[in-house]
């Protein structure tokens, strides 16, 4: 069981463990049927009752001091469960983490099970009605998606080679989309997404309500001050509003607590002043995911 745990830090990256992508896991849990059931009506997940409660209107309850905390803990625990769920209609054991481009490439090159596809992002579809091909899927998930026409891109390529998948991911990341990798459900990894906030249904609960729906990356941003000329290009790019200009000195200031370590700010810096550091060597944020 231990190798399957969601380890953080000290080189323990759960998403670089090839076991989580394996056919062994697919067969053990009958994942084809489970995922087909789950994704047929995927968009309904956010409006179905969970333990008798309808999620519609839950956001106001989550803002109440005591009840809010209880609901948020319950939701976080459900998503973070490290056990294969029985019910495909519940968002259980569906936890993810932010990954910078380098780790995403390692996932595609070394871990991802074939076939590899790119599907229309279901979050953008259900929150904007837009079909944008930018979610890279692996293994049995790819087979399931090929049964569901609304997720199959009309213009873009559906089946990708590893190399193509890397190129697609890089393009999304450079645009400023946040790389995320997900258990879907634990212990199977099948989704490497390129998300946006507030559209992403996995990031929103964390950013807007403080629910542990996605973990911060194994990294945090660093700034080489003498390279930075305070142009501010990174401020607009950061999807988590972690960068600002100090109102007095007009110098770039990073709020490490707000930084999710996605690394997309680096792509726009004309001076290469931004770089990622392993989270566990930066004392202010070590162990804080």
């Amino acid at each position, binding site marked *: 069981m231990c190798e399957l745990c969601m380890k953080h830090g000290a080189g323990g990256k759960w998403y670089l463990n090839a076991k989580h992508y394996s056919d062994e896991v697919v067969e053990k849990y009958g994942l084809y049927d489970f995922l087909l059931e789950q994704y*047929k*009506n995927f*968009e*309904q997940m*956010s*409006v*179905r009752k969970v333990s008798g409660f309808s*999620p*519609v*209107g839950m*956001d*106001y309850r989550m*803002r109440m001091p005591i009840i809010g905390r209880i609901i948020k803990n319950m939701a976080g625990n459900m998503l973070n469960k490290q056990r294969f769920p029985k019910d495909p209609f519940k968002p259980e054991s569906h936890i993810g983490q932010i990954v910078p481009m380098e780790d995403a490439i390692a996932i595609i090159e070394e871990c991802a099970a074939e076939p590899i596809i790119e599907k229309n992002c279901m979050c953008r*579809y*259900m*929150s*904007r*009605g*837009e079909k944008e091909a930018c979610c890279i899927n692996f293994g049995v998930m790819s087979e399931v998606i090929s*049964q*569901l026409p609304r997720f199959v891109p009309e213009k873009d390529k559906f089946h990708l080679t590893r190399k193509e998948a890397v190129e697609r991911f890089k393009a999304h990341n450079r645009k400023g989309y946040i790389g995320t990798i997900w258990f879907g459900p634990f212990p199977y990894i099948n989704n490497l997404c390129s998300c946006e906030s*507030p*559209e992403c249904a996995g990031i*929103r609960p964390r950013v*807007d309500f403080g629910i542990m729906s996605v973990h911060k990356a194994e990294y945090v941003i660093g700034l080489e001050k003498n390279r930075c000329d305070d142009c501010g290009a990174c401020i607009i790019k950061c999807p988590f509003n972690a960068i600002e200009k100090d109102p007095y000195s007009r110098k770039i200031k990073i709020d490490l607590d707000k930084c999710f370590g996605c690394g997309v700010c680096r792509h726009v810096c004309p001076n290469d002043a931004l770089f990622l550091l392993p989270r566990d060597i930066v004392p202010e944020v070590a162990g804080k995911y």
Partner: protein
Amino acid sequence: MKKKTIIKIDYSLCGDGVKENVDPRECCKCLRICKPAIFLLHQTLGAKEDNPLDPECWRVTPLWASLCTLCMECVKACPANAIQITQK
């Protein structure tokens, strides 16, 4: 106490698979215009469960009313005049 925003969509005008109604999948105007993206497009609960691979019945639910900024852009954009926003 802070007021609560109540967003209602009239499903006799938008969604629910009735032919005369707007199909929200074709329209999506409210979904696109809303800055905080508070709407959710989904298959209507309980609809067409016998053939969920090709469900005809979709609707929009205002899922995150607490994040609404009351800009009223969705109300203006809705071609069916189906959205109503009040505060309580």
